[in-house]
């Protein structure tokens, strides 16, 4: 154990700041992908509960597909396949590809969470709102969605923890984030274990507050019903 820590030697002075910066890149990647996934997810969720069968079907297929396929496949497709197929115009940076990949993939999970949230509400709520003379749209805005938000926050917090970990996969398509930095440092120093353990520590530092927040929300909002 002591040997291990000693092994870091002088590298640690370079590694700490570099990994810290890379961690910020990871957080940025996570936040931007999350926003994309949220927006897309909401759209897909609304399609999923639409009264038009066609829209519902499209949403179902989207959700079923992206939930059943690893995010890595999507990342590869966006980053490697599109340019290789000759669509030069779609050559995008690895960073953009990462955001698109994580966002499009995540939207499927968030759509399910949103849908579950809305459907978990008793049908009586919608009926009461309609009976009082609200249009379905108003009922959604003032009665259903405010309640649904409370229900979806814990699972969304959980999803966010998973998203943070997924950013590590973006190193495979060379997006600038912590894992990529760790790989670089590992190969240039021939101390892979040290590099990756330090990276793991940084990841844990980032995910720890998120995990605690998710647990706290689970307790607060879960018990409330």
């Amino acid at each position, binding site marked *: 154990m002591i040997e291990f820590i000693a092994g870091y030697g002088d590298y640690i002075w370079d590694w700490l700041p570099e990994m810290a910066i890379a961690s910020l890149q990871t957080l940025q990647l996570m936040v931007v992908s999350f926003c994309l996934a949220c927006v897309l997810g909401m759209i897909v969720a609304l399609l999923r509960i639409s009264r038009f069968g066609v829209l519902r079907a499209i949403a179902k297929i989207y959700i079923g597909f992206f939930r059943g396929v690893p995010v890595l496949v999507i990342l590869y497709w966006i980053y490697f396949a599109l340019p290789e197929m000759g669509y030069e115009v779609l050559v995008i940076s690895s960073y953009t590809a990462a955001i698109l990949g994580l966002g499009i993939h995540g939207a499927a999970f968030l759509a399910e969470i949103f849908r579950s949230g809305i459907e978990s509400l008793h049908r009586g*709520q919608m009926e*009461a709102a*309609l*009976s*009082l*003379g609200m*249009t379905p749209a108003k009922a959604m805005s003032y009665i259903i969605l*405010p*309640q649904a938000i409370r229900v979806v926050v814990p699972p969304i917090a959980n999803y966010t923890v998973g998203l943070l970990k997924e950013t590590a996969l973006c190193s495979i398509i060379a997006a600038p984030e912590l894992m990529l930095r760790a790989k670089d440092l590992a190969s240039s120093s021939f101390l892979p274990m040290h590099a990756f353990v330090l990276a793991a520590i940084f990841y844990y530092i980032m995910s720890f507050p998120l995990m605690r927040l998710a647990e706290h929300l689970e307790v607060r909002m879960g018990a409330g019903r």
Partner: protein
Amino acid sequence: MDPLLRIVDLHKSFGSLEVLTGVSTDVARGEKLSIIGPSGSGKTTLLRCINYLEKPTSGHIYIDDKLIGEKQVDGKFVHLSDRELAEERAEIGFVFQRFNLFPHLSALDNVTVAPRRALGVPKAEADARAMAMLEKVGLAHKADEFPERLSGGQQQRVAIARVLAMQPKLLLFDEATSALDPELIGEVLKVMRELADEGRTMVIVTHEIQFAAEVSDRVIFMDGGNIVEEGSPGEILKNANHERTRTFLSQIIER
């Protein structure tokens, strides 16, 4: 005077099961109509068709001579848009068996949300109206409480206040006391009795035969999707003509 509510040959099927088999009746302005009958007789479905929570398979409903839930365009019957339907429903008050209060809103907000958001009533006026209605049902002191802190009877009274705040022409009660513990039923029936005394038009689906007898002008016994018998409370409850009616009543009254 024209009847306030006209139900004409209403049929409703859920898949292959026909729940309403051609119901027709009128309700006069200020009349209190009670509907009794065994479960599965279609009485709740009938009520839910009146405010179009259920779409009838065939037949028509008129309130104040206006067609409900549909309109005639070039002689054909056409569905209403969401907005038109919402406007019609605003004039009908529906009280649910399970109250269906909005848990994320206080009692006061439960009562003001529909006037404000559906009718566009300004906040100050909506609040004033709401407090008056809560006062009426005896719950003004609970205005800031949330539904989870209220007893069943209190929740149902708030639900009634919520409906009254919309100033509806017609009040529909779907087994309003069936989900309540026995000791809480009285407070809700008291409110309903007061509303009846005010001359409101009410259609009440209930198991409370005693209450139906006291409050109604007319009682309808439904079974198998249609009206089996109707008459004044005295006629139905003391001197029912049909076998089925009498069997039902004897089972209920024995309880």
